[in-house]
């Protein structure tokens, strides 16, 4: 027991010096009112995109699936858009009716410099491109994933779907949504994804498979530098565009793309 005292003191000291001593895994998200001005602006923009996607989903799921689906509370409650983390480059939808998205100002300087270097742009242009890509295109992608969660149920997705195919479905739904309801969004996403695919094709092009993605998921989605995940997203987008037309070259509608989602 002679060791217990010093070890307990060590633990308390480590606890006090570390991130906190509340001894809980989960924490409360700050409310919209607690956010900074740039964070609130990001939430407003992401929520507007989710609501636009939700309107299209409610309309087209009636014809595509024969039943109306919606994105649920994530498209109604701005407190369900989490942007407050810093130094982490994250865009995620875990199925708990929350969208997590990094804000440009909360990225670290090396992360912002890395993004700007992909396009050879100055800070202001890189910021505008980042916000257009993540807060609109990636938000539509996460809305597509949310639609899959709502249509197939969260339990089914976790039990039966791979994250690679979930990302693929998210991009297919985002691409068909944009093609029908907001062609300008698709054009802007193409303009960003093209350089990203070119830049990282030699590094990950051959690895664009479900097996590679699952085996390297933690490295590809590293929140310090998720360039692998962003490349895979852009590859899914390219695949969605190729797949998104029938044999006569007619683009599939959003309703037709939705029709294949039910399990």
């Amino acid at each position, binding site marked *: 027991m002679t060791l217990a005292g010093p070890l307990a003191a060590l*633990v308390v000291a480590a*606890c006090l010096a570390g991130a906190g001593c509340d001894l809980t895994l989960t924490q*409360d*998200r700050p409310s919209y009112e607690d956010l900074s001005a740039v964070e609130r602006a990001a939430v407003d923009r992401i929520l507007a995109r989710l609501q636009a996607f939700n309107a299209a989903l409610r309309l087209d799921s009636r014809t595509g699936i024969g039943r109306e689906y919606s994105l649920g509370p994530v498209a109604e409650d701005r407190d369900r858009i989490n942007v407050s983390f810093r130094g982490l480059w*994250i865009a995620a939808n875990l199925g708990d009716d929350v969208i997590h998205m990094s804000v440009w100002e909360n990225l670290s300087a090396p992360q912002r410099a890395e993004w700007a270097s992909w396009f050879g742009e100055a800070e202001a242009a890189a910021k505008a491109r980042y916000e257009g890509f993540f807060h609109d295109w990636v938000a539509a992608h996460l809305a597509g994933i949310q639609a899959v969660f709502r249509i197939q149920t969260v339990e089914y997705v976790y039990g039966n779907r791979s994250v690679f195919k979930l990302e693929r479905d998210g991009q297919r739904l985002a691409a068909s949504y944009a093609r029908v309801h907001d062609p300008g969004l698709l054009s802007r996403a193409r303009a960003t994804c093209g350089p990203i695919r070119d830049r990282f094709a030699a590094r990950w092009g051959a690895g664009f498979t479900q097996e590679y993605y699952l085996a390297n998921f933690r490295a590809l989605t590293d929140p310090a530098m998720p360039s692998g995940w962003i490349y895979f997203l852009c590859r899914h987008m390219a695949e969605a565009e190729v797949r998104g037309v029938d044999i006569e070259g007619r683009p599939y509608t959003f309703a037709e793309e939705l029709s294949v989602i039910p399990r």
Partner: protein
Amino acid sequence: MSRVVFPAIGLILASAARPASAGEPETFRLGLGFGYVSPLADPAVAEGLGGGVEAWARVVGRLGARLSIDIARNALEGDLSGVPWPYTGGDVTFGPTLEFTSPGSSLAWLASVETGPYWTAYVLGLSWTWGVNFGTALVWRFSRPLGLQIRTNYHLYNLAPLDGDAIRCPRTMLPAGTLDRLDVILSLVVAA
């Protein structure tokens, strides 16, 4: 293989019929247990079940050493109840033990302090962190070499990341602070 295993099992069962004899301090003990585990006071992580294996050896007198491998599984609840991915974790820890009762008595009371790597697997992936635990155990040697042990360990982990990935809160994506877990485990032990 069976030529060795079956006689060994038979020897253990046969010797189990003999009463424990006081005054013969055991020098080595293996245990396999199952029981209750809980992350304490977390609104999104339910109480759970777990277990583990352990090896204990007497070093000198009342001082021993214990190696333990624990696993724990807890469902998510509250806001995260829709995510059917359990919060699982465990540890591989090693440390000294002190026996308060006389060595060789049929009822032994021990305390331990251990440290080692802790793993956590949940919706955000797998993380390895460093942790410590403080425990106490009652061992009842109801026959030789078998016994029952009930032990409780209080774990503090996520004290430092071991693989570069800190444990993050799945509700906010923010790094979690120190985490804790309480185990109450009932084990069958075999001593020599």
